[in-house]
């Protein structure tokens, strides 16, 4: 019983409940919603759940980066634009130079795209860690500049390209499961192990809780901020390749549009405070899955496109309320009163 209580208090719990609830709603509309079948043509798994896995991959990546940046006490608003830049660079390169089936060209495009993404991350890191600008302003500027850069790269066009290896990464399957999801999974496991098995997690948390005390304890603020912003940009760059690779087109104004909000929401739903400090990578995973499920559900239920943001907002607000200490206190009190009343009657 106590263990159950402890679980309820862990923030990701309610995110998890929300995912189940959304799936239940979908099931109510279509009892076969969760069915996974093997496609007779390709031999791959198909179904709504598989779609969710595909959608969640880029969100997982940017949520992880965001989680670390937020833990240092900052925020990275530029992730959506980094996705666009990275996608734009890759598509433009393949459009100009790529042979349709060259693995080498795909790798070159990926390397170039991630290099540019890291460059944006480096600017963020230098401005925040060395110059000492506020993370919010810094990354807000880079959010605007990044999308501008994407437009410069493609000369304002929505560039498309043909390259099969690139396409396979975004659309292919291994053992019936989407490659993007497997890649995202591998990446987040690597990052999680890197953070939690080394002392990085502890150092980032101490920096986020109390920068002054952390400095006097010998914590290297600059190096940690560089790692966090660079990692965030790198993961966003990969997410951008996923997002553009599936259609082999970069839409410079839509690719990664408002992705930073999804990432922040995923992190917050996962129980990491925007004030920095203690963070939960597992929570960010739950949060990312919730955002993906929510996106799919909205489409599935046929919520009008104009009402989509409002619908999303309601779900998130309810979740945040459930996680707030105060609201939980109220619910607890109401419960106690009801029990007392029942006892009085008996």
């Amino acid at each position, binding site marked *: 019983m106590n263990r159950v209580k402890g679980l309820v208090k862990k923030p990701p719990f309610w995110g998890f409940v929300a995912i189940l609830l959304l799936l239940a709603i979908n099931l109510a509309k279509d009892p076969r919603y969760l069915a996974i079948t093997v496609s007779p043509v390709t031999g791959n798994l198909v179904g709504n759940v598989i779609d969710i896995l595909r959608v969640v991959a880029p969100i997982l990546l940017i949520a992880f980066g965001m989680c670390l940046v937020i833990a240092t006490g900052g925020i990275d608003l530029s992730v959506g634009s980094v996705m666009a830049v990275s996608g734009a660079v890759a598509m433009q390169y393949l459009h100009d130079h790529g042979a349709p089936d060259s693995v080498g060209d795909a790798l070159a495009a990926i390397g170039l795209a991630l290099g540019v993404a890291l460059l944006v991350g480096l600017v963020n890191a230098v401005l925040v860690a060395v110059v000492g600008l506020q993370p919010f302003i810094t990354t807000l500027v880079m959010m605007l500049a990044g999308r501008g850069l994407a437009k410069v790269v493609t000369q304002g066009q929505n560039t498309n390209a043909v390259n099969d290896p690139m396409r396979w990464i975004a659309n292919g399957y291994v053992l019936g499961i989407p490659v993007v999801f497997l890649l995202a999974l591998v990446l987040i496991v690597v990052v999680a192990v890197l953070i939690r098995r080394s*002392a990085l997690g*502890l*150092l980032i*948390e101490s920096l986020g809780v*109390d920068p002054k005390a952390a400095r006097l*304890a010998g914590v290297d603020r600059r190096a940690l901020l560089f790692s966090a912003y660079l990692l965030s940009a790198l993961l966003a760059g990969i997410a951008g390749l996923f997002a553009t690779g599936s259609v082999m087109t970069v839409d410079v104004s839509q690719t990664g549009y408002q992705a930073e909000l999804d990432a922040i929401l995923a992190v917050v739903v996962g129980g990491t405070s925007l004030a920095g*400090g203690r963070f939960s990578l597992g929570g960010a995973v739950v949060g990312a899955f919730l955002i993906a499920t929510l996106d799919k559900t909205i489409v599935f239920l046929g919520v009008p496109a104009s009402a989509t943001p409002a619908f999303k907002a309601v779900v998130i607000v309810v979740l945040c309320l459930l996680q707030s200490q105060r609201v939980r206190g109220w619910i607890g009190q109401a419960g106690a009163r009801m029990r007392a009343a029942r006892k009085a009657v008996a």
Partner: protein
Amino acid sequence: MTEPVVEMRGISIEFPGVKALDGVDFRLFPGEVHSLMGENGAGKSTLIKALTGVYPIDAGEIRIAGEIRRLNGTADARNAGIATVYQEVNLCANLSIGENVMLGQEPRSALGIRWKALHAAAHAALERLGLGALDPRAPLSSLSLAVQQLVAIARAVQRESKVLILDEPTSSLDANEVANLFRVIRRLRDEGVAILFVSHFLDQVYAISDRMTILRNGRYEGEFLTKDLDRTALISTMIGKDADALRSIAARRARHDGEPQVVLSATDLGRKGSIAPTDVDLHRGEVVGLAGLLGSGRTELARLLYGADRADTGSIIRAGKRADLRSPRAAMRSRIAYSSENRRDEGIIRDLTVRENLILGLQTKRGWARPIPRREQDELVQKYIGELGIRPADPERPIKQLSGGNQQKVLLGRWLATQPEILILDEPTRGIDIGAKAEIQGAVAALAERGVTVVFISSELEEVVRLSDRILVLKDRRKIAELVNGEHVTADTIVAVIAEDAATAHEETEA
């Protein structure tokens, strides 16, 4: 005898796993200053929080002016006439003095705040404390911390309070400022306000209080008239054992023989606006005291030695080699450790656990790529919890839940774990109780025995004299004397040195 204005009976408060208060009685009479005494973790703060409505009580009753009251929240306590001034000044530095005094009580008209009336009322409240000279329109930030504290008291008493609670009001004041504060306290006492006073400075407790109540481990140990209880009896009641433990520390400090081995030598070390160029030599296994009043440059000098601030003049020779200590990390690599006087903002990492706080120094020294294995962490933490007597002995508790003295012990443990050769302790015993103080002093003495050089900074001159082999006296941001400790050196010697320097400085300006 008059009726008590506050009467608490059989108060018990339980936190998960801990009984913070167990059947405690407490009375407070109008027109008296009553000290609440006890070690850290004895339950003083908890009792105060029960009286101010912060914590609900699990058992017992609180009578205020004869009526039983249930205090649900601080607003209830305020309405019952109980005002509190906490250790850290809770005022708004960006507002004016008058706005601070009247915050939440602004006289209003249909057009908003009546500024004239506000400033008049604020002036009256300040006048009552003998602070009529302050301009209510001046920004609060123009005042020193000590005067800000008096403003906080003015704010607390301006709404007809019957009870004033002062929690560690003197911990960051110098002697003059304390005298000022006491004048204000006596004035309020003579007006019939009941004052609950908490301080770790025994001299002050004896100077100001009429009566005291002693707590130990959450239990009531008794109520005494101050004049009936001498210090030795007080201390042994507080710690529940003989005070001889304290005295023996001085005896343990054996003198060093033989040639002193220089471990650090600073020449002309200084920084504009914080300390004039100063020479410092530190020897192996030596305790060097930095004595001086608040703001004399003690902390500033220590921060330069640790690289917490950058020196702009001078050089440091560490173990025979020139050392460039431009950051705390560089100093740590040179095996220098520094524990800040500002425990709350520059010491503990609030949200982290005792274990995480304790290993942080060693971890940063090793680097992020070499995490300390969990087993080693647990061993380290167990070791220091035992050696330093950290209570509660729960490594996974967030450090913010520990009392000040125990937080300080965790920080001491953090630095000891890095095995420093030079350990700088800035006010390690400020605001902590006598038992923890003795434990920390004992640890300092033991470290020096083992060959660690300790730089010890404290406002309590007796403590500096008791522990140090050598004492650097600072005043007005420069070093004015260096004393080798011995039989002839006492706190009075240091005071005399500081006073004499004032006299010569005065003569110089005259001439």
